């Protein structure tokens, strides 16, 4: 599947932390890629990995980095496909060293790895307690005692500097998702960082690609209404981008899924607020006039994206300890099942109120009825219902009681309660965002190993 000579082809290796690896391998083997991008950092992941790094200074990168690279790096070296990934998480340097060690052990030789750091700006945030939290407007000061990490979303310019080292693999920490894809195009075509029409092209391509299979038919199927072929073998997408910023997205033939106007429109608007102002570190993207044209089987041409200059700030994710959530579940079936589940919920909540702990927020879900959309449906009651109780608490012990009291419904509650689970206790790392003047952030780019 040779690519046209006038495009750079950028494929998606992963669009979330738990993505499959086979579609990435298939792309490298068959799609004639120039670059492969793995986007694997959810909002709170860098905070969680910062805690890991405190326990082990060489860890704190994505736990799947090595298993992924074991599968993909030999192929990419062979086919001269360069890799960009944010799997460095809270420790890109540590990740780079671990990959090099793996490569050495696998007989791949001395593989240089470019490292992009400087997104970790916790120490700066500590000196700026007055910064307002974006959603609440309150000063970030109240979060500081419980803060575990703060990372700025860096942009494509910094990733480009990693690519300029010539290393076959560039590992970053927190970088905005579209920037990971814009960067290879900028680097390949030597676009200027203020070339707005081309930044718009690379950014919209990145935005479409960043969730991988969500462009090619994932998160889309509704049997009989919106059918998607062979989802079990869903293919990952790639983008073809020309020197002057023409964009087409496609996927490998003989893979599952579909790529057309419908799937591309859903993904274009995914996680977008004002379509005229999608803010990234690289530009402010305007998709108001975007048009999608089906230019071939599973192939869509994207036109009409525009951009304005980037803002003066970086968005920063502040991760902080936010107590615990405890949870329990138990099921009821048959005649009057819903009433029995509701009685169980009352008993559990009363037991929790009467214990010495303080639950600041409780939630009762009737799974099968109201747990997702939050309203009880009209019409006949379901034959089975699963009760779920969750509560916010300030200690592990308090959280454990939620599941304990729920499982007690097996014996001490309404008739026929079964299928309880071990108490779920989750330690919460929450995230809030602040905006930080860009000049305060000092990105660092270096190479592990001889370039």
């Amino acid at each position, binding site marked *: 599947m040779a690519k046209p000579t006038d495009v750079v082809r950028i494929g998606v290796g992963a669009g979330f932390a738990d993505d499959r690896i086979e579609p990435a391998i298939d792309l490298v083997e068959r799609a004639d890629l120039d670059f492969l991008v793995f986007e694997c950092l*959810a*909002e*709170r992941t860098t905070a969680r990995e910062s805690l890991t790094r405190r326990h082990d200074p060489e860890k704190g990168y994505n736990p799947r980095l090595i298993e992924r690279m074991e599968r993909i790096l030999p192929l990419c070296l062979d086919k001269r496909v360069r890799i960009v990934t944010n799997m460095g998480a809270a420790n890109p340097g540590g990740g780079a060293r671990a990959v090099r060690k793996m490569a050495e052990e696998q007989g791949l030789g001395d593989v240089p790895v470019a490292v992009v750091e400087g997104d970790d700006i916790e120490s700066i945030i500590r000196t700026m307690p007055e910064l307002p939290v*974006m*959603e609440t407007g309150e000063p970030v000061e109240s979060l500081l005692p419980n803060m575990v990490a703060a990372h700025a979303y860096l942009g494509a310019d910094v990733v480009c500097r990693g690519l300029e080292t010539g290393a076959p693999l560039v590992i970053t920490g927190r970088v905005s998702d579209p920037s990971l894809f814009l960067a290879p195009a900028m680097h390949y075509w030597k676009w200027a960082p203020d070339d707005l029409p081309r930044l718009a092209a690379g950014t919209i391509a990145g935005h479409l690609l960043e969730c991988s299979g*969500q462009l090619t038919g994932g*998160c*889309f199927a*509704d049997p009989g*209404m*919106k059918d998607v072929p062979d989802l079990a073998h869903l293919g990952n997408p790639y983008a073809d981008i020309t020197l002057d910023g023409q964009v087409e997205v496609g996927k490998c033939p003989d893979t599952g899924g579909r790529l057309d*106007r*419908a799937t591309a*429109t*859903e*993904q*274009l*608007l*995914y*996680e*977008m*607020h*004002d*379509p*005229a102002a999608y803010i990234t570190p690289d530009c402010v993207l305007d*998709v*108001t*006039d*975007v*048009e*999608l044209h089906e230019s071939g089987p599973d192939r869509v041409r994207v036109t*009409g994206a525009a951009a304005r200059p980037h803002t003066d700030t970086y968005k920063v994710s502040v991760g902080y300890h*936010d107590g615990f*959530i405890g949870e329990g579940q138990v099921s009821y079936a048959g005649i009057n099942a819903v009433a029995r589940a509701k009685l169980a919920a009352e008993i559990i909540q009363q037991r929790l109120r009467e214990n010495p702990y303080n639950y600041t*927020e*409780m*939630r009762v*879900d009737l*799974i099968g009825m109201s*747990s*997702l*959309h*939050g*309203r009880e449906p009209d019409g006949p009651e379901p034959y089975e219902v699963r009760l*779920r109780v*969750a*509560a*916010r608490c300030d200690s592990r012990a308090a959280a454990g009681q939620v599941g304990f009291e729920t499982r007690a419904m097996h014996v001490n509650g309404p008739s026929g309660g079964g299928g309880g689970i071990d108490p779920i206790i989750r330690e*919460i*790392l*929450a*995230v*809030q*965002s602040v905006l930080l003047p860009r000049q305060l952030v000092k990105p660092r780019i270096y190479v592990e190993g001889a370039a």
Partner: protein
Amino acid sequence: MLRVYDLGHSRAGDKGNTSNISVTAYDDAGWDVLQRELTAAVVAQAYSHITPGPVRRYELPKLRALNFVIEGALGGGVTRSLAQDVHGKSLSTLILTIELPGR
């Protein structure tokens, strides 16, 4: 009555405590109805038991799509919500249940 489900398809995304929910029409006729009838107020009403809002609506006529930005819909946000579906991915299918007057 027409259901939004019969006229278009939907996807939900999350940012902090805000859900954005797009509705894309299957065809021009569906787009006419959606554009006219699926107002921010109608959507705010359908989600009012989840959040007081506000709800903002954006139009993308070239894509025959609407984008609704619904504040406060995610129980405090992905990282701290007590809900089962912390991302609110299933909130996309709530908008499809809304009934609209046909022409």
